[in-house]
C-alpha cells in the first residue's frame, strides 16, 4: 500500500530541499507520495522541473503561511 512521506526542508537553501527529496525518494516505494516543505522559493520552482525531467508525477505545489508544499508521486 502506498505511503505518504513528509520531508521537512524548511530553512534549507537550494539545492538542499531537492537533495533531501532525492535521498528519500530512493528509499520510497513506487506509488508513494512525498511532500517537501520548503521556505526556499527557488527550490519550490526547481523541484517540479526536476520531477518533469526525470519522469515522476507532480501532484501539487502550493504556499501556505510562508511555506511551500511540493507533493509528488514516485512512479518508477
Amino acid at each position, binding site marked *: 500500500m502506498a505511503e505518504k512521506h513528509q520531508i521537512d526542508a524548511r*530553512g*534549507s*537553501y*537550494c*539545492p*538542499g530541499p*531537492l*537533495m533531501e527529496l*532525492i*535521498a528519500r525518494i*530512493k528509499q520510497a516505494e513506487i506509488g508513494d507520495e512525498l511532500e517537501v516543505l520548503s521556505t526556499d522559493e527557488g527550490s519550490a520552482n*526547481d523541484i517540479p522541473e*526536476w520531477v518533469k*525531467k*526525470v519522469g515522476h508525477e507532480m501532484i501539487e505545489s502550493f504556499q501556505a503561511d510562508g511555506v511551500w508544499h511540493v507533493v509528488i508521486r514516485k512512479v518508477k
Partner: protein
Amino acid sequence: MERICILVTSGSREKLQMAGMLASVGAVSGSEVLVFLSMNALTPFVKDRIDDIPAEGELGQLILDKQAPPFLQLFEQAVELGDAKVHPCSMAMDVLGVGRDDLLPFLGAPLGLTKFLSEAQGAQTWSF
C-alpha cells in the same frame, strides 16, 4: 545521455559552492557528471583541510552564516545520489604532496589533463 564536465580551479567558497550545486543537481537530473579538481580547488578535499576556505565577498560569508548546504556535502551527494565522478588532478596532488589516502574518500582516481580534455569533448563544460 547528456554529459557535464566541470573544471574547478578556484579555492573560493562561492565558486566551490556553485560548482557543487551544478554537480549535484546535474547528476541527480540524469546527466553524466565529471568533476576535475585542480589548483586551489583541490585543497578543501584534502582530509582535515576544510578550515579557512576564503570567501570572495558577501555571498561567501552569507553561505556560511545561513548554513546553506556545505559544498563538500553537495559534491558527495553528487557521487552518492547521482553517480557523479569527482577526480583530483594528478599534477595538483603532486604539487601539494598528497596521495589518494590523504583525500576525502568519495573522490575518484587521480586524473590527468589529457584524459579530462578527452572526456570533455562534446560535453557541456563549465569552469569555476
